[in-house]
């Protein structure tokens, strides 16, 4: 097998694994959401099917597949069918560009040369730009669903959702530029590498330099994912279910997967920009690798285990942010539409501009 064919195969396998990972995370998150909401609201939640109700979602998935599949009478069939599929694409593509752990160095064995295996779907040189641009396409699936369903509630939900996503994208991107200014790169792996070590007795993470940026980024992320307190696009009290009113069965589940995928991307980005990515406080990847190399004879095994340790560290941080999404959803009430737009344009945008100018001025003074 030639080198190129090998690369192509590895990348295809990685893409498949990352897509499956995203899809498989959804039942777990739905379970956490339902149990978590029950816990917050002093209820039981699903606790009958399997241990702790964990297999409830398996039963739900079977139910979703078995449901009757239909298109509303006046709907545009092409847009109606395409929308749920399009909903998955931005989240899956963004997740593939995120570095999950330190690369594994495989040593040469037999006739095969040494190989560096990145724990990342593909290395995008301008990772931040790639993820922001791909996830900005998420509005189209909602617009297609809203227009294709030929339903007033769907259309209103879709218009609200896309207006909200376009408005909050500005503040989100501006708060990310603060991070880009500090680290001077658009590459996610390099940003993580620059956050190694200790400063002022604390881990040298982005939140030390960008506390305001983190608050702005994370609140805008809620709006981008259409989650409460910004789920104006669904607003079941006013719009039945918003843009997915006419959807049922597995097509509805695909929208759910897209939403949870966006949550995962937002949590990963928050971790990478402000909480050191896969870094563990007070120890660097090289230190861990050295310790493991004394324990294991093969350097491949040591490298693999190091990668695993940092993967777990990354997943713990991401898991915390995912829980934060669920926590906020079941704690805060929904905004009114005018409040949402005021918050986006009159508060978030000026504050993120202020954050950007402050960061730029501080960089200019400190670095000369």
């Amino acid at each position, binding site marked *: 097998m030639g080198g190129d064919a090998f690369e192509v195969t590895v990348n295809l396998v990685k893409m498949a694994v990352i897509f499956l990972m995203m899809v498989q995370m959804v039942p777990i998150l739905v379970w956490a959401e339902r149990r978590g909401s029950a816990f917050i609201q002093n209820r039981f939640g699903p606790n009958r099917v399997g241990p702790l109700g964990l297999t409830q979602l398996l039963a739900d998935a079977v139910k979703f597949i078995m449901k009757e599949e239909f298109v509303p009478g006046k709907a545009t069939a092409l847009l109606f069918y395409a929308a749920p599929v399009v909903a998955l694409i931005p989240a899956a593509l963004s997740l593939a560009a995120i570095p999950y752990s330190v690369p594994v160095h495989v040593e040469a064995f037999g006739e095969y040369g040494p190989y560096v295996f990145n724990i990342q779907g593909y290395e995008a040189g301008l990772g931040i730009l790639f993820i922001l641009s791909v996830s900005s*396409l998420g509005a189209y699936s909602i617009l*297609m669903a809203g*227009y294709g369903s030929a339903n007033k509630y769907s259309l209103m939900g879709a218009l609200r959702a896309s207006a909200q996503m*376009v408005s909050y994208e500005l503040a989100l991107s501006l708060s990310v530029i603060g991070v880009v200014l500090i680290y001077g790169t658009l590459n996610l792996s390099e940003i993580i590498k620059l956050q190694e070590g200790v400063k002022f007795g604390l881990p040298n993470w982005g939140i030390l330099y960008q506390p305001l940026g983190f608050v702005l980024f994370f609140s805008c992320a809620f709006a981008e994912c259409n989650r409460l307190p910004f789920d104006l696009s669904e607003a079941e009290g006013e719009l039945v279910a918003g843009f997915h009113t006419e959807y049922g069965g597995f097509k509805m589940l695909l929208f759910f997967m897209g939403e949870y995928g966006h949550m995962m991307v937002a949590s990963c980005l928050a971790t990478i920009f402000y909480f050191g990515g896969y870094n563990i406080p007070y120890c660097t990847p090289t230190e861990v690798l050295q310790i493991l190399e004394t324990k294991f004879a093969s350097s491949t095994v040591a490298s693999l285990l190091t990668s695993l340790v940092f993967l777990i560290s990354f997943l713990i941080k991401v898991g915390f942010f995912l829980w934060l999404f669920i926590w906020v959803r079941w704690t805060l009430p929904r905004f009114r539409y005018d409040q949402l737009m005021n918050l986006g344009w009159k508060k978030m945008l000026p504050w993120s501009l202020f954050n950007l100018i402050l960061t730029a001025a501080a960089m200019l003074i400190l670095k000369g």
Partner: protein
Amino acid sequence: MFSSYDIVFYLLALFALFSAFGVVTSASPIYSAFFLVLAMMDIACLFVMLGAFFIAGVQLIVYAGAVVVLFVMVLMLFNLHQETEAFSRGTISGMAKLGVTGLLCGILATTLFHFASTAKTIAAEIGPEESTEKLAKLLFSDYLFGFEAISILILVVAVGAVALSQLKGGTHAKS
């Protein structure tokens, strides 16, 4: 013999032509806008093939992610009805259309013949490495005037659009 690069390029180019053709020929304005998104994404892919990752990203964020979303939103709000014909008829307007198309083709051909060699040398000067930084330096130093002039042009277009829409016949007309 085609290399894999050529095959991907021609596929993308064909798809770009197809979606651009869809923009002008679809009878429903919404479908036109969706075709426009496809064309934008396709052009972003072509930029990636040229190694211009920054421009590809900006193309996606600005055009596909913001401008066309606004188009689609406005079209949905107005609830425009499907046009019965894809093209409006008329001798004078037909001649004007042909003339404009000819002018555009002329501009394209002139650009290709005159600036292709200069573009190649400039591209070689900038180089593939760290192109974002060099692009920023070029934009904000040598080409600052052109850059700012274009943004004023966009402002003029926006003011003109508002003025036109308030004339009679427009949706926001002062009756």
